[in-house]
């Protein structure tokens, strides 16, 4: 990589200067003349039939410009998944009933916030309260209150099944029969929110038969598709503008009701309408993560080799399918990715309950799945007297393995990740040290734990592919048109680095026009971990295409064959005589003069798994999932105070196979951020609910990591791929998969420090103390019996 000048370098963020100076424009910063304020009326009940809505009094209030209910919609539903098996099940405004607290019933546009709020209070809604159910396993029982009809293809006698994923290979019972040791465990996970700092906010303006929208999102093209369909407008009549986005982490992907409402209200009033969700609404009514309950049975040989695994996952999906039917598919992928499992039986259920609808969250189920599997693997290793590193190396997948779904691990660097993270953290010397030789003068116990994971790097979900256009300017500088959206991950920086490398032009000479659905090509969006691979390759191709055109013109002008030409510093030169050169500006003029006005525009397109027609089956897992698996091994070092039960992450070590690092400095930022999210998930964060009502809807009560909770974080890459100018490349994801290993590592480190096994997250002082007391009681019993 030594000849690369931009790729593989810690280039500063392209969007950095705007972000540190307050100039970066977010959706909440866009203001238009005559703007109205929108507010949404939400259900006060977890489950109720709507008998009557009367908006007359509200409409009569001076300053109220429009009110909408379901009757004002075209009745088109939407959903995170919209397939024949899983048709859309969400109304943009509740039709006949509400199924969670905060479900949207009506929306108002008024001249100011006070009037809008007053109008909401004047809307009369008559409800018939229905019995509600909140626990997924209760909701599954026959006879439970029916939230929605059970999925017709699930034949078991169960209620409220939103969807099911089922797959198996080998013979799982034969595997268990052959095993020397079999154990079954159950793991539970809390409800956790994304915690994006920027609230959800949408400004919509219907003007000259065109809907202009500024909204906080994770991809403008998917927002356009969903808004167009629910509004009954052609795509060309909807334009989603670019704004910077103040954090997403999975929580701003598909359509939200307030986005529809702002748009519809603007269409009715002809004025711009802005709807901002306040923090309480986000905590109480918006989509959080998935709370997976994982039942895990594993059989191994004496040497720790996994022979069979049976996994049953129950997902509390909330009031709609949301991404609840996706996470039960993905969970399978996160199970089968890192370790060889010759015999597997997997069942995942998504269950309707009267909780809020769910969204993906950074890692989309992987942290919960890996927490379960990595914890149980350590329990197995402990029983067999094998160390945690050896048992992982014994089962980890190597390069070029074909997976049961016909995916391939390619140049998988997992074995190196495990070995190197163990070496870097001095794992085996620290392991068991805290428990076996505790400092008798201190109540602090130190422990170390490991977690391994794999993650997809792009898959086929609408809009499936990315396009990029690279335009040369008269002066030799460049404009890039990309649909990619920078949500903080560094999309704009990485795209600029690639163009800079391919065209040998400074990053300051490249300007981006991004994520505007009218002017930029379609893009996969910032939510399937494929940006650097898919949009990045489209960018490389577009820049290469521009470079070929530049070289062709220069070749004609200079009388030198293309293969003898090189590019450097915005100019083309003769390799044999470097004095002979043309600047890009001169090439541009020559091209316009002699090539029918061609201004040198390069195009590039990329789609992952181009031979696959569509995404794999959510029901059976059949079909390719991804062509790039990222692998990682992570180690957590924790301190536990055995007097208070308080635990903290001291240091995290991350070794990841990301293919090759386009910008190691930005990758470090992704790693550190995921370490922080993992420690929040491990120790602090939980949306507490009672009968569907959120009990802690503020950041004072929902504890997110503060600077005091910061943990040291060290990371390194296992490089398995290379970048060469003009050639396709592979990169693997690095923005989502690295929560998992830290969460699992923390659970294992708590055990290493104290002997207390965590089977439900978060790992609170209460749970740790209860575990310590149980150990003491067992020890006392042993002494008595001796």
């Amino acid at each position, binding site marked *: 990589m030594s000849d690369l000048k931009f790729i593989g370098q810690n280039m500063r963020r392209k969007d950095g200067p705007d972000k540190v100076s307050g100039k970066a424009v977010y959706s909440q910063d866009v203001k238009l003349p005559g703007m109205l304020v929108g507010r949404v009326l939400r259900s006060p009940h977890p489950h109720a039939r709507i008998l009557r809505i009367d908006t007359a009094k509200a409409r009569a209030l001076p300053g109220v410009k429009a009110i909408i209910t379901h009757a004002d919609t075209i009745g088109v539903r939407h959903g995170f998944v919209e397939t024949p098996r899983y048709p859309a099940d969400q109304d943009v405004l509740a039709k006949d009933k509400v199924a969670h607290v905060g479900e949207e019933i009506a929306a108002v546009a008024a001249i100011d916030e*006070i009037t809008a709020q007053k109008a909401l209070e004047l809307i009369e809604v008559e409800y018939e309260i229905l019995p509600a159910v909140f626990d997924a396993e209760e909701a599954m029982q026959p006879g439970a209150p029916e939230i929605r009809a059970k999925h017709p293809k699930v034949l078991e006698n169960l209620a409220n099944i939103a969807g099911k994923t089922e797959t198996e290979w080998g013979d799982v019972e034969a595997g268990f029969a052959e095993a020397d040791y079999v154990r079954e465990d159950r793991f539970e996970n809390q409800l956790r929110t994304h915690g994006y700092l920027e609230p959800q906010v949408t400004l919509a303006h219907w003007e000259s038969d065109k809907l202009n929208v500024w909204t906080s999102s994770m991809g403008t093209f998917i927002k356009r598709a969903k808004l167009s369909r629910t509004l009954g407008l052609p795509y060309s009549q909807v334009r989603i503008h670019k704004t910077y986005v103040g954090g997403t982490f999975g929580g701003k992907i598909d359509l939200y009701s307030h986005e529809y409402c702002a748009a519809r209200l603007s269409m009715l009033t002809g004025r711009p309408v802005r709807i901002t969700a306040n*923090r309480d609404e986000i905590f109480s009514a918006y989509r959080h993560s998935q709370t997976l309950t994982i039942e895990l049975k594993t059989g191994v040989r004496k040497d720790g080799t996994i022979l069979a695994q049976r996994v049953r996952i129950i997902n509390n999906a909330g009031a709609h399918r949301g991404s609840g039917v996706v996470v039960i598919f993905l969970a399978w992928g996160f199970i089968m990715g890192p370790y060889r499992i010759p015999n597997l039986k997997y069942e995942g259920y998504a269950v309707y309950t009267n909780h809020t609808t769910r969204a993906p969250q950074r890692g989309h189920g992987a942290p919960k799945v890996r927490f379960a599997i990595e914890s149980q693997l350590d329990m197995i290793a402990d029983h067999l007297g094998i160390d945690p590193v050896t048992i992982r190396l014994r089962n980890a997948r190597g390069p070029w393995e074909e997976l049961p779904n016909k995916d391939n691990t390619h140049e998988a660097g997992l074995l190196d990740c495990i070995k190197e993270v163990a070496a870097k953290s001095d794992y085996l010397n620290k392991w068991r040290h805290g428990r076996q030789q505790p400092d008798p003068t201190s109540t602090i116990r130190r422990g170390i734990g490991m977690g391994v994971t794999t993650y997809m790097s792009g898959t086929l979900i609408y809009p499936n592919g990315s396009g990029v256009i690279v335009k040369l300017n008269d002066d030799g500088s460049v404009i890039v048109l990309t649909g990619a959206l920078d949500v903080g991950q560094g999309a704009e920086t990485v795209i600029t680095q690639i163009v800079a490398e391919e065209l040998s032009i400074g990053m300051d000479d490249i300007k981006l026009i991004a994520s505007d659905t009218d002017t930029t090509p379609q893009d996969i969006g910032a939510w399937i971990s494929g940006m650097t691979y898919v949009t990045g390759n489209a960018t490389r191709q577009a820049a290469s295409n521009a470079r070929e055109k530049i070289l062709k013109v220069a070749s004609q002008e200079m009388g030198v064959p293309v293969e003898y030409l090189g590019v450097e510093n915005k100019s083309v030169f003769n390799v044999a005589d470097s004095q002979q050169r043309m600047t890009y500006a001169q090439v541009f003029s020559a091209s316009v003069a002699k090539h029918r006005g061609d201004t040198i525009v390069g195009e590039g397109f990329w789609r992952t798994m181009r031979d696959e027609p569509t995404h794999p089956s959510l029901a059976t897992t059949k079909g390719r999932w991804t062509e790039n698996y990222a692998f990682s091994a992570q180690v957590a070092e924790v301190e536990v105070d055995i007097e208070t039960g308080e635990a903290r992450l001291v240091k995290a070590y991350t070794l990841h196979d990301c293919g090759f690092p386009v910008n190691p400095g930005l990758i470090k930022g992704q790693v550190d951020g995921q370490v922080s999210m993992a420690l929040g998930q491990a120790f602090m964060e939980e949306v507490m609910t009672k009968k569907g009502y959120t009990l802690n809807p503020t950041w004072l009560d929902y504890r*997110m990591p503060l600077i005091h909770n*910061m943990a040291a974080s060290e990371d390194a890459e296992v490089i398995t791929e290379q970048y060469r100018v003009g050639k396709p490349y592979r990169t693997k994801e690095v923005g989502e998969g690295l929560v998992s290993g830290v969460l699992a590592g923390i659970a294992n480190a708590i055990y290493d420090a104290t002997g207390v096994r965590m089977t439900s997250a978060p790992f609170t002082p209460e749970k740790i103390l209860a575990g310590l007391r149980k150990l003491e009681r067992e020890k006392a019993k042993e002494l008595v019996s001796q």
Partner: protein
Amino acid sequence: MLDSPEKTTSSVLRARPKPRLVTLSINGEPHEVVVRPHIMLLEVIRDHVGLTGTKDGCESGTCGACTVLLDGKPVLACITLAVECDGMNVQTIEGLSEGGQLSDLQEAFLDQAATQCGFCTPGVIMSSKALLDSNPKPTVPEIKKALEGNLCRCTGYNSIVDAILQYSGQGVKPLMRKDGAP
């Protein structure tokens, strides 16, 4: 100019207390605004004066994204009444790069990649500035104390601490590099 759009509950609408004239210096520029007494400084800065660099994350003083300096001290603009700021000096993020030139503190944030989504960044930088103005070489515990009210969900805070250490000349080298012609 009247205070619109207003952001309070309907009880205030009924009461409608009389507006007051508030004089402020914002980044050295004199501003006169007419506000009702319940209006917060954040609304004045963002909506009346139009400086949108200061962010609105929670409207309840829990996230720190709206941190500005009031007579040099960091305050949460979303829970500071505008009428209480009469005659005072307000500094916002825009004031740090007058004339388009980034300050060394802002440069240090770029050097350490201490901004990702960027939404918390203006507040974090203002809290950092308040600390550094009174304590030019803060220790790590002092940095943590000064920034304990600023939530950042992206960075894990490590790069933010490094940016302050780099700026204050405490042995941290830039991680990222500036563009240069190849």
